[in-house]
């Protein structure tokens, strides 16, 4: 369309400049101390670390939305299921849980999955009058068998040292291993969702993922045998040293002294730098892989599919297959981010998985950053996270500023008390402004 031709040109310097600005924000946060910034490298790095994880989330969503136009509104669920991995992989095993019923649960799950496969097989292979009865028979018998195996096993596991554990426990493997496993978990879930939802004649992925996201979180909350449900798993192992260890390590104490930074602060910075290093490696590797794919025939094919599904199908491209592929990969990346996040937090608390915070905020990141552009998504992830964290302190200050001319009274009081909600307003405003003035995001797709 004619109106758009001007918009297509965007400066090649745009991305570097924006990243520069972003870096500057973090430096300011680390060095200057005023109403806007805290002047602490600890804060700055802490925001950066979660920012990088957010960037990975945004990258995953960008693959689905930016490359293929798939609307995933269940981001929170895939993050959550990825977060299960650190618990199951790296937490120390719980004594007696496997003998109590671990094996039986495993068998039950296999029976459950087998039932589903058998059901879909029956449905596909049988025709005529026996189709429905056979399907029902398979489902009912399978379900009964599954419950018969599953329920007692779960009771036994949950009864095992209920106050402290009551779950299967982990394998005690290195926590870094759980990252790819988290990706796998999410990919498996995504495959199931995609198989059903992407196959529906009109695409109903959005609502299916919205539901599945909620269901995954509900499972994590309620299936205590898995990861203690809402009772949370704490003290998940870290891939980096503990601050306390550093503070007791004479070598580090000496080094901190030589830098002239207080010990507590130095140890905090050190640990966060280590995290930042790990996370950046993941982020950069993902961006590189994604860019390589996008700038090759695969990327061209994805663009063609996005442009015109019907024509791409007629030109021999398996549209549903490719959609499934990007959907699964995107979710895998989200799962990876979920595992990274839990590793970083050291805590698995399923109640934290709130769609407002995870699904919608990640959407804001992608849209603001620039969908379709990996660098854009990464930028959006870090920037929005920065703003989201800072809005928490900026909001009240803004309200204070705005209400300063008001006479002290009920209204002022009320506004001051509600200041915390400025955070939502601020996020919404950022999204709306970017959509309005830079509709393709800060770093648009080329």
């Amino acid at each position, binding site marked *: 369309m004619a109106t758009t031709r001007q918009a297509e040109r965007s400066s090649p310097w745009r991305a570097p400049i924006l990243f520069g600005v972003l870096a500057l924000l973090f430096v300011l946060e680390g060095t200057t101390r005023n109403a806007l910034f*805290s*002047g*602490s490298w*600890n*804060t700055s790095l*802490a*925001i950066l670390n*979660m920012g990088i994880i957010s960037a990975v989330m945004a990258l995953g969503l960008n693959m689905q939305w930016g490359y293929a136009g798939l609307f995933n509104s269940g981001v929170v669920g895939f993050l959550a299921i990825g977060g299960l991995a650190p618990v199951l992989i790296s937490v120390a095993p719980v004594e007696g849980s496997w003998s109590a019923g671990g094996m039986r649960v495993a068998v039950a799950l296999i029976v459950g999955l087998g039932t589903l496969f058998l059901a879909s097989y029956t449905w596909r292979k049988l025709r005529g009058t026996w189709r429905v009865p056979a399907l029902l028979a398979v489902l009912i018998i399978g379900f009964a068998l599954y419950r018969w195996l599953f329920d007692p096993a779960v009771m036994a596991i949950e009864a095992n040292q*209920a*106050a*402290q554990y009551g779950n299967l426990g982990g394998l005690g493997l290195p926590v870094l291993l759980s990252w790819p496993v988290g990706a796998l978990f999410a990919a498996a879930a995504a495959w199931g969702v995609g198989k059903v939802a992407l196959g529906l004649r009109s695409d109903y992925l959005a609502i299916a993922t919205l539901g599945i996201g909620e269901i995954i979180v509900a499972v994590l*909350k*309620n299936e*205590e045998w898995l990861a203690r*449900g*809402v*009772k*949370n798993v*704490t*003290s998940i192992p870290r891939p980096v040293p*503990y*601050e*306390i260890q550093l503070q007791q390590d004479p070598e580090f104490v000496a080094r901190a002294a030589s830098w002239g930074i207080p010990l*507590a*602060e130095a*140890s*905090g910075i050190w*640990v966060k730098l280590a995290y930042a290093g790990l996370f950046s490696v993941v982020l950069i590797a993902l961006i590189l892989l994604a860019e390589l794919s996008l700038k090759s025939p695969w990327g061209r094919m994805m663009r063609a599919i996005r442009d015109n599904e019907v024509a791409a199908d007629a030109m021999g491209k398996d549209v549903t297959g490719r959609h499934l592929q990007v959907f699964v990969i995107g979710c895998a990346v989200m799962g990876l981010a979920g595992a990274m*996040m839990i590793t*970083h*937090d*050291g*805590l698995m*608390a399923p*109640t*934290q*998985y*709130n769609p407002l*915070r995870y699904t919608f905020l990640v959407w804001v990141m992608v849209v603001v950053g620039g969908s379709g552009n990996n660098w854009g998504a990464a930028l959006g992830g870090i920037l929005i996270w920065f703003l*989201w*964290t800072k809005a*928490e*302190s900026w909001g*009240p200050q803004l309200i204070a500023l705005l209400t300063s001319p008001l006479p002290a009274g009920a209204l002022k009081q009320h506004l001051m*008390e509600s200041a*915390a*909600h400025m*955070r*939502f307003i601020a996020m919404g405003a950022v999204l709306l402004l970017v959509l309005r003035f830079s509709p393709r995001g800060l770093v648009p797709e080329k």
Partner: protein
Amino acid sequence: EEVKLGLHLGFTGPLESMAPNIAAGAEAAAKEISESGKFLDGSTVVTPRSDTTCIDAAASVSAAERQVADGVRAMVGGQCSGETIATLEKVAIPNGVLMISPSATSPALSTIDDQNLFYRTSPSDARQGEVMAELAKAQGIESVAITYTNNDYGKGLADSFQAAFEKQGGTVTTSSAHDDGKADYSAEVAALASAGGDALAVVGYVDQGGSGVTRASLDTGAFDKFIFPDGMIGQELVDRFGSEIEGSIGINPAAEGDGRDRFEELAKEAGFDASGPYSAEAYDAAALILLSMQAAGSSDPAAAKEKVMEVANAPGEQILPGELAKGLELLAAGEDIDYVGASSVELVEPGESAGSYRETTIKDGKLEVVAYH
């Protein structure tokens, strides 16, 4: 010196309505101490707030990081157990900041290696369940249905109650979760009603799903006798249900003495609702932190953290809400105090409230204290 005491609470999120009263409690204590002029040679206290969101550990951690960067020496918070654990492990311990939570009640917090930096003015839920069970049995309740808010607090308390109740020979017909802030609770109530029982234990929050379930149970006639633990007790409860819940049992952490009454007066003056859950505990948390600093003679948390137990427990002169100035004087004079405060603080190892509970019953549409346990 201006001592910064962070208020690290869930101002947004699912428990956003509980946070203002908790904050108000803590602020009342801070103000009292600040205005007494006797704190650390005339130091004042400011209470910058930060938002834990209650559910988002990451946001809570970064908010706490900011507080630390701003130079807070100690924090009242967090509000919810999950987020509290994250903040403790990731911010408070590494930075050596003292944290006293008014409301995080998960048993998991008892076992964390906290370098003595974490205390709470509320008891662990492990104990509350037992007390609830005893009271229920004493009232002749043989079978109960349990509904709990689906988080670590609800689940933990429901489990401990169920275990204790069954141990005493009662039956639990069903124990099922309700999610806070859901659109509709008819399905939950239908299930509870079908399971039946002499009473319904509502392990939830009074301005959340807990009330929703209670309301629907009353309306459909599913239950007319309830057992309410701490999350449900408050003026809200009687305002809402009044005589409809006549004869129900209430239980919450509190101890005999007029600390609470004093606090309520104080709150009325300051214009906030004292009966809100954990408001009193927050007052105590703030007071404890500041009194410990006074006892240590410095606002350095590393020194103050070792004084908390001393200040909180006997021996020494008892200090009630409104008497903080007296406490400060005594401490300055090198004497020992026994802070009682609004919630009858008595800290046991590893730094949590001992768990004295108040039994109430609803009579003529009012909460009436029956006994203390």
